[in-house]
């Protein structure tokens, strides 16, 4: 099978990535791990966080460490779908004087696409990117062209300013496998950043992976074992987010407008497998699921007005749901007094 050898390669890939990227990405080890999970699971990533939380830097580092084609698109209010997918242009042959139509591929024809500030662009342009993400192909002027493999979109979203932005509809957010939230660094780390300017070191990052290995890793991730108890926990966790269903917790039914769909279940399973592979393990655990779940669920659960007025925080809610699902798997007969629904 060679899976054991591939697992070793994946573990080495992780170590290489950490060695190259950790000095540049101060305090963002968790964000890096989650992003690598999504990359190995073959999904796209939505990076959120305040200004200057190294969202863009993370993508740039990743692109530099991989021997892959990389393009960056700054999303603006006047960006058009053709600015992403490409355009047909009329070209004149200097020798014959004949004109012919030629397709100029847009930046989407790449391996890693950084979609910077995706919520600054109007919906139709957002939709054209999300369609390419989902279908891994692009249709313009009546012809359909496949995108290169692997194809990975890393989108950033500003949450600081909301004026003049177009919120991503929930159905479109769902297409991102993970929503990785960057953390605000503490004072000591900020002093370190100010003094050493780690971003300047990004130029020195060595390439540690190529397209061929990445595709091989992605195939191996799908072969990682998911034990029955872990499968059960994933489904229990996803079901617990759906208000008004028997599995929803009382808090969910009170505060959640819509819960995570089936895509969340698939994403939890694949990313847990990817995390196991990154740890050099052939089987995923409940801990893998718990670790990946905040990023898998954060953007798939919509809170209602009541949650807003009562000051309910989505991350805290997700954390409680994960704890709830974990107790369900480790000790089945919990027999809690007054199991409220």
């Amino acid at each position, binding site marked *: 099978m060679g899976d054991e050898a591939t697992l070793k390669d994946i573990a080495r890939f992780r170590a290489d990535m950490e060695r190259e990227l950790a000095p540049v990405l101060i305090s963002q080890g968790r964000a890096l791990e989650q992003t690598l999970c999504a990359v190995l699971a073959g999904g796209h990533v939505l990076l959120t966080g305040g200004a200057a939380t190294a969202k863009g830097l993370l993508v740039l580092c990743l692109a530099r460490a991989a021997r892959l084609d990389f393009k960056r698109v700054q999303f603006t209010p006047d960006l058009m779908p053709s600015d992403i997918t490409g355009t047909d242009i009329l070209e004149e042959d200097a020798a014959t004087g004949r004109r012919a139509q030629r397709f100029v591929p847009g930046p989407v024809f790449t391996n890693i696409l950084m979609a910077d500030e995706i919520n600054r662009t109007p*919906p139709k342009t957002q939709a054209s990117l*999300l369609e390419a993400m989902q279908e891994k192909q692009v249709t313009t002027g009546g012809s359909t062209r496949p995108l290169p493999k692997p194809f990975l979109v890393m989108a950033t979203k500003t949450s600081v300013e909301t004026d003049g932005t177009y919120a991503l509809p*929930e159905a479109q957010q769902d297409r991102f496998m993970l929503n990785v939230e960057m953390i605000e660094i503490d004072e000591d780390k900020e002093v370190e950043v100010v003094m050493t300017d780690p971003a300047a070191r990004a130029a020195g990052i060595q390439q540690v992976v190529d397209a061929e290995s990445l595709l091989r890793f992605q195939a191996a991730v799908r072969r990682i074992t998911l034990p029955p108890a872990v*499968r059960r926990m994933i*489904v*229990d966790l996803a079901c617990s987010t759906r208000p008004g269903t028997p599995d929803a917790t009382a808090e969910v039914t009170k505060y959640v407008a*819509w819960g995570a769909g089936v895509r969340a279940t698939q994403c939890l399973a694949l990313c847990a497998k990817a995390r196991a592979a990154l740890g050099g393990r052939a089987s995923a655990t409940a801990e893998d699921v718990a670790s990946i779940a905040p990023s898998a669920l954060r953007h798939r659960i919509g809170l209602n007005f009541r949650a807003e007025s009562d000051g309910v925080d989505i991350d805290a809610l997700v954390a409680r749901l994960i704890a709830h699902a974990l107790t369900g798997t480790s000790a089945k007969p919990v027999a809690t007094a007054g199991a409220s629904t």
Partner: protein
Amino acid sequence: MSAASAPASAPLGAQHVQRLQAARAAVLAQVRKAIVGQDRVVDDVLTSFFAGGHCLITGVPGLAKTLLIASLGQALALSFKRIQFTPDLMPSDIVGYEVLKEEGGKRKLVFVEGPIFSNIVLADEINRTPPKTQAALLEAMQERQVTSGGVTRPLVEPFFVLATQNPIEQEGTYPLPLAQQDRFMYSLVIGYPTKDEELAILDRTTSETKSAIESALSAEQLLEAQRVVRALPVSSAVARYAVRLAAASRPKHATAPDFIRQFVSIGASLRGSQYLVLAARARAALEGRLAPSVDDVKAVALPVLRHRIVPNFKADAAKIGSEQLVEKLLKAVEPPRSGL
């Protein structure tokens, strides 16, 4: 799978509906390779395809609606396009547009077909787009042709529109006007899978195995099957039952029961009774029967009437939805005694 070439003039025989029954089984066997659960929705969409009607689908994001419809398309060898509806989508993004092209030193206008030139069009989140763009799609649905730049072009046959709506109320959406909703034969609701189904989905989609869907029917065979469905004879008793059911849903109609008068603002139109009969025909044919029965009408009543019976604010306050109203209606309206 055998060619269902019924001579147009010859009377329908048992063999025609038996072929349809076999075709349904073959298509379902293929779709089951990709789709776990959702039996009711798969069955209803398939019935609408054989009847030649369009579907409105309501469901939250992430329930694999696209996969379901794309799989049906593959099993029926039909071309499939998905359009994400957005507030800035224009009619030309759906219908197509003309470009100037040069060939052999001469310039001419060439029409680039929009995504509507496809057998199955999935209009995703149709209520996110402004009315003019919605209307462009609905006009095409009705007329099965589009006009652009002064030229009218027929759409490909068969042609199905499946429009999805997100049930979560949001700002910035444009609800479909009732008259436009009326053009959809069926209104379907897609819900979460059961836990066991979700486990099966997980196993099937996150490991290696992938089985390709093969086409079980050709587009020609489907068109022929639609002709068989439309040619199926309906007894006057069954037709009368469908008409009474639709009439009783109209609050101002003499036969309307009290709960309809109390809770309904608008009832089903004439299209409602027409679609009840057409869907009953398709159901009977797909089950290998030559004569649609009152039970067939009852079985299709919910998806046909769900979007045609509009609850009023009193119903909203009492939390009575159109589904409950259809169920009550089915109990209240007596089938005619004569005939079958």
